[in-house]
């Protein structure tokens, strides 16, 4: 049948079709040019929020509610240091944050900022044991709670898991999303490449690692799609202003890459990517050994089935590494970025998180009364009630 199909088209006609195709492409490119030149900038992360705490370059924001609160315990979100948290609030119709606010969740978010040359000696320990801990303490104090809900995304999920292992008494429920935990996998190119990288030489030479360098690495994961086809697709949809606007928003996010503090990246690559210390129980943060078994609070671990940055094999093992008796693993048939912006995740992700959290929030706020009671039907292990390390 294939052969018949081609024979139906005479060569002359084929030539004319090719010419038409190029003509069509060129007219769309001109249209795209016009639209792009008219656009100076687009705005991301427009959900209203207030700055409630700041320490060095790290800022803590509180989102304004959009509806009646359904869970009395606030949710603190920790995003990755790589790229920006704006992806979670890309635009009105594609905003995980907005969707969660619409489900009545009370949301705080940590914005790590742009490390400058002055921050090259900020360590992974500073980020987790100081900045994150101080943000958690601020929310606890502001809301009069012993515990809050913690949600970590991507690298921020690794931070959240480490934090929950260090300070389980401060975390009521833990949610990790597209989070690398087991770094010893061949499924992700970042995992493979990191084995060859002399990160010590890199940090000693460059200080902070430029965001553009990191971005180049991410683009190289899918070079033809991300450096060629994506833009050809933009030309194809140039006559749809909304599609162009969407594209620009994604593009702005992708290239908005903060530099990485050198010392933080050194430890993250050497001790996590190369030595996989987190799941071996050999990682130390703030002088304390990180034992994932200390994560005994309810856990919701969400991963993307087609994730090329954090492969499922890196995310999935978390539930088996914690001592929580209430550990749920959920997956979505999307990629890493699709987890925030795909239409499916827009429909399903926020409700999944909200329902899971609301079930585990309890009716009381637990204000200054110790740990709130366990959620219905969940048997809490004895270890959870045992003495824990006190906060600094």
């Amino acid at each position: 049948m294939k052969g018949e199909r081609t024979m139906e088209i005479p060569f002359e006609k084929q030539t004319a079709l090719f010419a038409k195709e190029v003509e069509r492409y060129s007219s769309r490119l001109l249209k795209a040019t016009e639209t792009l030149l008219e656009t100076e900038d687009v705005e991301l992360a427009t959900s209203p929020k207030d700055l409630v705490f700041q320490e060095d370059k790290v800022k803590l924001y509180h989102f304004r509610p959009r509806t009646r609160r359904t869970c009395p315990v606030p949710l603190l979100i920790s995003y990755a240091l790589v790229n920006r948290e704006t992806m979670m609030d890309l635009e009105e119709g594609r905003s995980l944050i907005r969707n969660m606010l619409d489900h009545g969740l009370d949301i705080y978010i940590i914005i790590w900022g742009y490390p400058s040359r002055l921050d090259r000696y900020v360590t992974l320990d500073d980020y987790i044991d100081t900045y994150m801990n101080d943000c958690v303490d601020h929310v606890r104090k502001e809301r009069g709670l012993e515990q809050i809900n913690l949600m970590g995304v991507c690298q921020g999920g690794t931070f959240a898991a480490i934090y929950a292992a260090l300070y389980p008494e401060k975390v009521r429920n833990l949610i990790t999303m597209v989070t690398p935990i087991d770094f010893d996998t061949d499924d992700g190119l970042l995992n493979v490449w990191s084995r060859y990288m002399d990160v010590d030489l890199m940090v000693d030479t460059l200080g902070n690692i430029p965001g553009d360098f990191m971005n180049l690495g991410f683009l190289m994961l899918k070079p033809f799609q991300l450096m060629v086809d994506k833009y050809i697709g933009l030309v194809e949809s140039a006559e749809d202003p909304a599609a162009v606007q969407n594209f620009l928003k994604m593009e702005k996010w992708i290239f908005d890459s903060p530099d990485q503090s050198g010392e933080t990246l050194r430890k993250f690559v050497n001790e996590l990517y190369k030595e996989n210390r987190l799941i071996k129980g050999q990682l130390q943060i703030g002088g304390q050994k990180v034992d994932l078994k200390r994560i005994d609070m309810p856990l919701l671990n969400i991963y993307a089935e087609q994730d090329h940055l954090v492969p499922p094999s890196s995310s999935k093992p978390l539930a088996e590494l914690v001592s929580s008796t209430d550990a749920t693993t959920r997956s979505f048939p999307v990629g890493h970025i699709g987890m925030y912006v795909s239409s499916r995740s827009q429909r399903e992700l926020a409700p999944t998180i909200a329902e899971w959290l609301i079930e585990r929030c309890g009716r009381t706020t637990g204000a200054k009364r110790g740990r709130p009671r366990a959620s219905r039907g969940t048997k809490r292990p004895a270890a959870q009630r045992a003495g824990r390390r006190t906060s600094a």
Partner: protein
Amino acid sequence: MDRQEQQKDLFSQWFEFQRSFLSQWADSFGKTPQPWTDGLGFWQGAMTPYADMFSAWSKMIQQTIGTTAGQAEEGLGRTVLFRTLGASNVFMVLNEFWLEVLGSLRELYEAKGDADKSRQIFERWVQRYRKVFEQVVGSPVSDSAQEVMTSWLNTAQMNQTAMGLIWNPWMQAMPQWREQAERLMKGDWTALTEARSLWREVYDDTLGRVFAAPAFGLTKEQTERLRRTYDAFVRFWSSLPVFYQLFYRTGMDALEKVFEKVQDLKVDEIRPETLHEAYVIWWTTNENAFLELFKSPDFGNAMAEVLNQGLMLKKRLDDLTAEWCKTLSIPSNRDFDEVAMAVQDLRRRVRQQQKTIEELQRKLEQVA
């Protein structure tokens, strides 16, 4: 043989090869009265004006838009436009490549059973395809691949003048480089890697030893620092070909797969039905091929080599700058780093003391 003569010799051989190739190519026309090859012949004539049109159009659009965009204000739209134009260029050059392929189908048909002619046609496609690939990969090597080869010959020449004693290894390697240069110009990218290995071997035996040797006198330290920097530059520069050769080899392998897919798709003929269809086959095939490359230890090692040599070069340059800065009243990178470390240390101390104060206040309140 001086540099000009070497170049003349090298390029005259290449020119001769091209001339005879073109002559054979021209002779092969007009021998195929087959009815359907007349149809194929149509492409030869019909495609050429279109190919020209694409080129002309592409240039015109780049210039027009480039000028307009150049005048536009800095901003996201302008930035994305330039990325889009880059991708469109790939698309256009790829289209021209397909037209080149279609245009030579008749020749290929005639060459049936003649391995040499078929190979020559394929080599021509490869030459053309290099343009496509240069658009994608960039051109740190491909643009200057021939220059690289010539530069190596230059290095040898420079060496002859300055250091007659260690000239022999370069001279001995020269015939091999010529042979490798010819292969490279015919599209055989493995020649670049072989040449690079040979170059590195000769360099290590000659100039490398000189740079590693201790210097004497009052300028000893400065001389050694300069030599280390030059050595780092040479090592970085010589690490690039292997890295890029992997890209080109993978790209060429992917091209073969693209042809196979197109043939599978169109049972009887090598012909994409639409340019976009051919383009989709092209990029998806390449994406998969490169994913496999990126997973391989060969790529990991080559990437590490380029990265490490590049970093080492930067480190050496920074060292040089820091030394020069010593004589001026401006801070060096090292000074900034010391300040950054002190600031971070202070931040930690202040935080710790704040927490201690808060703790003491709490205790005081409890006592009171």
